[in-house]
């Protein structure tokens, strides 16, 4: 259980049209770490996630999850250890009831139906939505959808959670609830986001991606206070570190 590390070694990826989205990127994530991956639009974050999940394969370099190198052959193994929550829950909740969605993964693992039900019940209880079990996904609110999407990967019992923009397009309270939920997870977490305050609150380490490479990699509090660095990468200071519009006082180094 102690080898949930993620090793990305000098990975390159070019899209079929020749655009080099990821350009010699290396990253090492340790067991139990919570890492925020930030960067401007088009910096290569999404491509990085696709590479990490084995949805596309690098043209050069390699990725190792635990001690298993990622390849077509090892995909089933790796996908049991590492799960990804998509940005748009409508992409992730593709079945007609929440139960079937959360059960989709375990059923594909060919578990007994009793075990499947147990896992679903457990996952729904873990995220606090057992009452939504038989609801249709399209009838859920934005926050409920996101929570159900998280449950749908928890039922796979992964060690590593990859989350793409987990707080995007949520109202403030739903966002807070999702953050509290994620904070309670013991998993190794890899989170991409433009919500820098969330990264600051959830991740002890932040990585800035720019032009398909790592531009900075440091503890979140250290990195997210460097206004110049952030600006040069198409970002800005987290709101909580910016000046207060009322009193003009700034809590961070200017």
């Amino acid at each position, binding site marked *: 259980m102690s080898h949930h590390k993620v090793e990305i070694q000098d990975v390159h990826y070019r899209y079929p049209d020749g655009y080099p989205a990821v350009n010699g990127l290396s990253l090492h994530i340790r067991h139990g770490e919570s890492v925020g991956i930030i960067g401007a639009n088009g910096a290569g974050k999404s491509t990085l996630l696709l590479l990490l999940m084995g949805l596309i394969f690098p043209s050069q370099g390699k990725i190792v999850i635990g001690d298993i190198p990622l390849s077509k052959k090892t995909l089933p193994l790796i996908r049991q250890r590492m799960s990804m929550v998509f940005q748009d829950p409508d992409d992730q909740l593709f079945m*007609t009831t929440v139960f079937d969605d959360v059960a989709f993964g375990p059923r594909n693992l060919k578990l007994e*139906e009793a075990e499947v039900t147990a896992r679903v019940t457990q996952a729904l209880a873990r995220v606090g939505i057992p009452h939504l079990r038989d609801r249709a996904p399209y009838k859920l609110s934005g926050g409920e959808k996101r929570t159900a999407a998280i449950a749908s990967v928890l039922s796979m019992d992964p060690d590593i959670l990859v989350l793409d923009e987990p707080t995007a397009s949520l109202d403030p309270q739903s966002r807070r609830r999702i953050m509290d939920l994620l904070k309670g997870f013991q998993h190794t977490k890899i989170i991409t986001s433009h919500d820098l305050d969330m990264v600051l609150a959830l991740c002890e380490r932040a990585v800035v991606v720019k032009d398909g490479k790592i531009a900075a990699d440091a503890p979140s509090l250290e990195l997210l206070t460097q206004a110049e660095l952030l600006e040069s990468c198409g970002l800005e200071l987290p709101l909580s570190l910016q000046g207060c519009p009322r009193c003009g006082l700034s809590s961070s180094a200017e």
Partner: protein
Amino acid sequence: MSNLTNSLYNLRQMDDLADQDTLIHRIHPLVKLLLTLFYLIVVVSFDRYEIIRLIPLCFYPLIVFSLAELPLAPLAKKILIVQPFIIGAGVLNPLFDSQTVVFAGLTFSRGWLTFISIFIKSSLTVAATLLLIATTGMHRLAAALRLLRIPRLFVLQLLLTYRYISVLGEEANRLFRAYSLRAPRQKGVHHRAWGSLAGQLLLRTLDRAQRVYQAMALRGFTGEYFSGAPPRLRLADLLYLILWAAFFLLVRFVDIPSLLGSLLIGASA
């Protein structure tokens, strides 16, 4: 685009109705599906001049409807919405078949009989079909289809289509709203925007399909679809099936209204 909004609303409403928990909702989905099909065959098997013998078949939708505790207005509306097409198809019958018949002392053109017969048949078949989905719901119906050995691939695909109608419908709605705000006096989409508007939606659809596939693949999907264990068949389900089927057969082969009527006349005379 009120069309699309209406359709989405309708889908949701039927889905909500199917979420209830009543005697009828609890009946096994396969039993309801088979019974509905049998009912449709019985209704349609009466010939085109038949009116009277169709009447006992009203029992089925009326009883199911009330046992399932469904609201009257939305279902009645749905049944009526379909009727104009039927009326359109049948209304010419009196013109084409003007031979008259003496029916209960009154003179009719036979075309009217066929027209009324079609109208009743259409109401009954539409009612039965809507009741099926309003008391079963899509995912339970999908389980019934699996029990009928309909291939997994088709059932999964059907469920996905059903699931994404609301997502894409909303997307189409937003797109159309954005269009009509900038083209206020047009009724539909101008022909110069045909390709780009629907094409734009199509491209987004294809991208979404790709992401849905990725989400499925990440959870171990390899082309096989494993549905859960089907609901179990109870004695009550079988009884329900047998009783209704027997009733349908009785109505099909015995002219109950005439029997009843002659009994009544005989008794009063």
